[in-house]
């Protein structure tokens, strides 16, 4: 048996571990509303995340109108502006990006890609969505309470977050914190599903190292989320107590309006440590799924295996581990013990190494590939450029001494938008264009897609690349208006105008994208099954879109890794993961069935 010949292919039971308990919904409500099917839940998460994300987008337009044309838009007050800043940030990072990558893509793709019928705890999965929706509703409600939404910045630093002088310190901050608590509870429920499903419910033959990198990315990000969100939970609850009960976890002695407040001996720095202990892993919770998705889309559309799969897995895992020991690079000017700076600068620059390796490997996947410049591929190439740029500016900020002049300037804003705002969103677009045919059986309209791509890519780069230089000039962030200074040239105001106009143009392109989705669901060109000729299991379902139970009567059996593209000796330029070896058509053969994978598929290096 040592030559790898597989016997008795007909009688291999599909799964050795118990099949997932599939719930069969009977009524309309249990099928489409309170659904326990991960695919429906995924669409619920995605729709809610995109809708609240559009609110976040509009908030960003309001902010840019104020920054670009401060004299024209006098209806925007400083209070309004700081509320926009805060809600835009919190919505985008947590309620859009985290929810969409984990709740949206995770729910749809994980069961399909691992070869399971559904998640392992479907009832809990359903509850998790409704808790998330509740969190979104509570957050939105904060706009309508007395005092309005919180204006403390998405980082919610005390003491200002809960004191007069900051908008929303009366009610807005309470609703914000309560919303976050619910979000975290909901995400723990979902996260348990994603992790345990990947560990336990993989189809026969699907070893960990045969998983597509999309699954590795989402799986690792979920573990990060489960371990990092508790820090935000603890910080949020403590701040809630400081606000509601008058405790002093974070509140030192403070004088406001000439009066000493009742607080004593709290530490504002304690909140910052808790917040960033969560906050840094959070950016990898967003980035790691994006990394995984990019790897899979590039390899499918370039018809080439992802270069260095093992290194890619190790990089994902080591980035995740290292992400827990870099948090205080957000606190270099916080007044913490300055000697910490040496440690955190070192760990931060070390984490650049596995991240850079991933980037090299994406480019090396393109090298000697056979590249279709399809819209998903275009977005992935754009991602590589934007993420490289954003990652590099991270090296500036991570190096503690260099961070000192740049912190709290527009350089930081430009950096995190490149690396969190543009890069992962480009991946979201790539993913939607790529998997839309799976979910609907139709393509998104190509012409509109190209319009969307070019405007978004070029527009975003033109918005954020010059912004770094405003940071060098010394323009601070979170400023309602720059006003009179002795050192900022008038051309900076012109640049601000330019950036605002680009923001509005790019924003318009997103409206076109949404319309494309809505119309193509009904009128898009039919795609047929597996239009991209991909190897991964989600494309090998019986029906497109996949039906309830995903794979029909029999679960798939997996025979090889996820990247059997352009294998020498095989006629087709791809071999699906679950194709039995004796069904692989060899090139130049007389159609003889051979019972083993072509040796080149398994060539040692």
């Amino acid at each position, binding site marked *: *048996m040592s030559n*790898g010949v597989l016997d008795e292919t007909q009688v291999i039971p599909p799964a050795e571990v118990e099949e997932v308990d599939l719930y069969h919904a009977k009524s309309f409500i249990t099928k489409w509303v309170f659904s326990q099917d991960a695919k429906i839940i995924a669409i619920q998460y995605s729709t809610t995340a995109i809708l609240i994300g559009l609110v976040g987008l509009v908030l960003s337009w309001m902010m840019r109108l104020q920054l670009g044309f401060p004299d024209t838009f006098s209806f925007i007050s400083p209070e309004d502006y700081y509320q926009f800043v805060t809600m835009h940030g919190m919505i985008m990072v947590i309620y859009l990006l985290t929810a969409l990558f984990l709740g949206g893509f995770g729910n749809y793709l994980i069961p399909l890609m691992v070869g399971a019928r559904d998640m*392992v705890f479907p009832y809990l999965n359903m509850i998790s969505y409704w808790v998330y929706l509740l969190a979104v509703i509570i957050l939105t409600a904060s706009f309508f309470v007395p005092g309005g939404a919180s204006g403390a910045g998405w980082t919610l630093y005390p003491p200002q977050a809960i004191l007069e002088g900051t908008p929303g310190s009366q009610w807005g901050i309470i609703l914000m914190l309560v919303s976050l608590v619910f979000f975290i509870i909901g995400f723990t429920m979902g996260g348990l599903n994603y992790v345990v499903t990947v560990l*336990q419910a993989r189809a026969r033959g699907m070893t*960990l190292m045969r998983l597509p990198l999309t699954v590795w990315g989402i799986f690792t990000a979920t573990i990060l989320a489960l371990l990092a969100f*508790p820090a935000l939970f603890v910080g949020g609850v403590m701040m809630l*107590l400081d606000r509601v009960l008058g*405790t*002093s976890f974070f509140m030192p002695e403070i004088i406001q309006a000439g009066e000493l407040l009742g607080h004593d001996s709290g530490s504002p720095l304690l909140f910052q440590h808790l917040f960033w202990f969560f906050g840094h892993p959070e950016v990898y919770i967003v980035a790691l799924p994006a990394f995984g998705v990019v790897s899979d889309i590039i390899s499918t559309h370039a018809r080439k295996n992802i270069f260095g799969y093992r290194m890619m897995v190790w990089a994902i895992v080591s980035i995740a581990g290292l992400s827990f020991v870099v948090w205080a690079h957000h606190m270099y000017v916080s007044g913490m013990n300055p000697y910490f700076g040496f440690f955190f600068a070192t760990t931060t620059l070390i984490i650049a190494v596995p991240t850079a390796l991933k980037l090299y490997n994406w480019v090396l996947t393109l090298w000697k590939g056979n590249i279709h410049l399809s819209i998903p591929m275009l977005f992935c190439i754009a991602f590589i450029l934007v993420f490289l740029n954003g990652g590099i500016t991270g090296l500036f900020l991570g190096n503690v001494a260099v961070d000192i002049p740049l912190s709290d300037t527009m350089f930081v804003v430009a950096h995190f938008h490149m690396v969190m705002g543009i890069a992962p969103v480009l991946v979201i677009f790539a993913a939607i264009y790529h998997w839309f045919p799976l979910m609907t059986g139709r393509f998104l309209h190509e012409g509109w897609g190209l319009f969307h791509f070019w405007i978004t890519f070029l527009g975003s780069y033109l918005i954020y690349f010059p912004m770094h230089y405003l940071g060098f000039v010394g323009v601070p962030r979170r400023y309602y208006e720059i006003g009179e200074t002795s050192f900022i040239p008038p051309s900076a105001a012109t640049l601000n105008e330019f950036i605002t106009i680009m923001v509005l143009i790019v924003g318009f392109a997103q409206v076109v994208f949404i319309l494309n989705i809505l119309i193509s669901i009904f009128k898009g060109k039919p795609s047929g099954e597996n239009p991209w000729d991909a190897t991964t299991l989600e494309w090998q379902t019986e029906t497109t879109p996949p039906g309830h139970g995903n794979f029909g009567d029999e679960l798939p059996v997996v025979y090889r890794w996820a990247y059997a593209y352009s294998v020498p000796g095989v006629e087709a330029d791809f071999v699906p993961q679950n194709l039995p070896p004796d069904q692989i058509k060899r090139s130049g053969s007389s159609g003889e069935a051979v019972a083993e994978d072509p040796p080149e598929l*398994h060539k040692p290096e």
Partner: protein
Amino acid sequence: MGIFHEITKKPWLADPAEDEGYHNQGASFLPNGKVGLRVFLCVVTVIFTLTLIAYADRMFFATWSPMPEPWILWVNTALLIASSVAMQWASNSAGRDNLGGVRDGLLFGGVLTFAFLTGQLYVWQQLVDLGYYASLNTANAFFYLLTALHGLHLLGGLIAWGRSMLRLRRGGSVADLRLSVELCTTYWHYLLLIWLILFGLLLMS
């Protein structure tokens, strides 16, 4: 460790041993519920660890006046220990196919836990009456926070307990109940351990 061996394999190479033996590809033979609970307990551990680190930090650096220790806390501790014992009894009975034991163990476990929570609320009441408000100083604030977190986690456990009781009431057999009883028992022991640590720290500070 198994996981290191797993992720250093080269998946594009044929692994005859792998395909031949039709391994369970590394999935654990534990039921999914047990794996899920273990992951969840990691999350709970992080919450309490971070809160305790914050507690230690403030204990050393802030103005600290320790709280009094009402003797009721000792009673509550005994109640919680007893509830763990009862849950273990239910779990052992499930292993021996003894439905009566399962029923009694679950019942006592739940009742004793409710008694514990009532006792905790009574302690809060007493302290507030004596003027030890949460806002007074940091030690008080941490006491209320830690006991609240612990109590809320127990309450969550009682929801799972409630579902098991319902299943029992509807004529569930030992086989139906075994997994959920074992999971509840593990969770109860874990929260007892957390309580003993919290209580110990409270006595020490």
